[in-house]
């Protein structure tokens, strides 16, 4: 029996008699459109109008909330714009001034160190977390929920907590290490330029690793057990199973999570601003805190926008990677 429109809208679903042979025919939609009857062409036009009508609110929202601010930011970066004054077009002058500024070079380098340091550490800890939680053990669910806590706590609270933890005199780290007899005097976590960078990275890692861990764990649980069984039969060790089975199977998720987190970390503001305000000196100043200093404190919006825009090529490149990767994954899935 040939089945054309089986169980379409408004039709009652019917069960096939046993032994019925299914023959699928070409769907009607593949018939050349121009050749269709007049009522069909009108329907197509109406459909198109309806489509545009439905998409218009979303498109307007995107234009108003994303495109306009973004294009405005680019425009402002090309102007000498002080808060309250009209903007004057200066071309690439702001970019050139920043490029020549030794202070901005420090900021750019700090941003790279902060982002790369945070992402690499989160990647490793997240992977360890996922592998550790992959096995079904007692209390596993509770542990998973507990490990998600840093991800759900507001960033401001996290930054203030870490600030207290690393306080020279009253911080848990110094008091603990001192009481254990490991250190004689307090460590200047937030005062020493190198340790200050390490400290803000630690806080960022603590906030962000659950996102990595939970995403990796979810991906690992989709890997068929057969693959592990087969590997086990072939004599693969636990490490080999991870390296040869788990990792290749979840590489898509690893890539997406890493790229997304890189974008977020590169734009991070709260942790650094609350913990060090970019100090000591400019030792932890990153793009976001420097832009804030220029834009809000010094009221130089044009320059602040230009400072932010310097990270744009990297972020744009990462977004292109993410989108292309997702498109590449789609047919496979």
């Amino acid at each position, binding site marked *: 029996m040939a089945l054309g429109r089986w169980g379409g809208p408004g039709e009652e679903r019917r069960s096939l008699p046993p032994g019925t042979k299914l023959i699928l025919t070409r769907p009607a939609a593949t018939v050349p459109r121009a050749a269709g009857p007049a009522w069909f062409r009108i329907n197509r036009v109406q459909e198109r109008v309806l489509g545009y009508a439905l998409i218009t609110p979303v498109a307007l929202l995107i234009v108003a909330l994303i495109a306009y601010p973004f294009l405005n930011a680019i425009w402002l970066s090309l102007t000498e714009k002080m808060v*309250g004054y009209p903007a004057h077009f200066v071309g690439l002058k702001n970019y050139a001034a920043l490029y020549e500024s030794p202070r901005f070079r420090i900021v750019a380098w700090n941003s790279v160190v902060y982002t790369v340091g945070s992402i690499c550490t989160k990647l490793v800890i997240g992977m360890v977390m996922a592998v550790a939680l992959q096995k079904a053990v007692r209390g596993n669910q509770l542990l998973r929920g507990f490990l998600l806590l840093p991800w759900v706590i507001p960033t401001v609270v996290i930054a203030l907590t870490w600030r207290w933890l690393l306080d020279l005199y009253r911080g848990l780290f110094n008091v603990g290490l001192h009481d254990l007899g490991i250190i004689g005097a307090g460590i200047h976590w937030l005062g020493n330029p190198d340790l200050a960078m390490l400290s803000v990275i630690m806080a960022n890692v603590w906030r962000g690793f659950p996102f990595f861990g939970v995403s990796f764990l979810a991906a690992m649980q989709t890997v068929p057990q057969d693959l592990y069984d087969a590997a086990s039969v072939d004599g693969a060790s636990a490490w080999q199973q991870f390296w040869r089975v788990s990792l290749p199977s979840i590489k898509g998720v690893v890539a997406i999570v890493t790229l997304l987190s890189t974008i977020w970390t590169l734009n991070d503001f709260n942790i650094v601003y609350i913990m060090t305000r970019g*100090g000591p000196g400019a030792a932890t100043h990153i793009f976001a805190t420097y832009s804030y200093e220029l834009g809000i*404190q010094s009221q130089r919006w044009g320059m602040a926008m230009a400072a932010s825009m310097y990270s744009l090529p990297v972020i744009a490149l990462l977004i292109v990677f993410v989108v292309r990767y997702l498109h590449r994954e789609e047919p496979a899935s």
Partner: protein
Amino acid sequence: MSKAFRWILLSAAVLALALALQPASAADVKMTLWRLKTYIPPADKILDTSIQECGKKIGAEVTIQTYTFDDMWTKYTAAIESKTLPDVAELDAVGPARLANLGRLSDVSDLVGTVTKELGELAQNAEGAVKFSGKFYAVPHYAIPLILFYRKDLLEKVSAQPPDTWEAINEISVKIKKAGLQDFPQGFPWNRTGDGYDPAMSLLWSYGAAWVDKSGRFTGLPKDKAVQAIKVVTPAYTTDKTAAFDYLSWSGSGNNEAFMAGKIAFTPNGPSILFQEDSTKHPLRKDTAIKIMPKGPAGRNLALTFVMNWGIPVDGKQQKEARALVACLMSKEKFTTYMTGSFQQAVPLFKSLINHEYWNTPDGKVIAETVKLGRPVGWPGPTTPAAAEVVSSNVLTDMMTRVIVDKVTPEKAVEEADKRIKEIYDRLPVK
């Protein structure tokens, strides 16, 4: 039409008529006032009560919004661009210059005249922050002076007198450290907080390293004097090790906490430490003392960075009521109530009250005297937008940390700072 419906219709018509004929009530005039949230909540409460009482008196409903020193300019920046400044704005030391330069503040010369009649002549050093081209653009409210806090018990232990110079602070700090009383007694944070940039200005000016002339025009940072000033304060971090690197990352309250925890012997701060120790019956209160900030070879030129002023933005729709509200808040009765309940935080800038008996205590005299010696931001010229940006862009404290953290020479740090200040004054020329 049913009987019930006719009754409902009639009742609605009577109600509408009654509402239309009702006289204008206080709630018809709605105003917004933005003020600073200080470290002394009881003082804030008194001010809020006064604001509401004054609002009632002038027939206006006043909505109060607050900000701290840290987020003040975030709020103002957004409001300037969106033209939504409040009816009455409590502005910091650089606020009147910035907003007046934008043409966003009303001329309040008449209001200053009214207040002067009641509170006496305006202190000369307060004028620079609010008077431009012969007109007043804000009414000075009060000043929070930065004073030197020290531990008198520790100074007694090392047989030292309270310091009057920066060099003396260094010497005593070394003695305290050597005596094993504290590891890092010197709590001067050269960072992006008011406790960082206010002493930085006072230090440079007291060493004769001002960068403008009396008209407020850039003349250059005197290199020798600035280098001399830097060489006095940076060894605490670099060679003497009497200051901890962590102090550079303090927030606005970091030095308060360290002082009250007994970890430092010296720190610059507003009177809030006294309030906090008094209100908590702190064991260190008896050992806490204050002094006017140190002098330098060029005298004692202390920055008045924390001066609060009432401005009336032109954006506000209730101009008349805004003036009446400020006049009421600055009446002798209201201001005295606020001043005497401020735990010596609010030092008046009008002469009759600065000589009030309230300040006739050992601590009060130090606090009031500090304000009398204060110089407006932009000294020896008036406060200008360029002077404001020198403060807000942290040029001066960056100069210190370049030496302390990045280990550049004081000479190079001064050259860099001079270049940055020049760029600011070139961009924002003094009219």
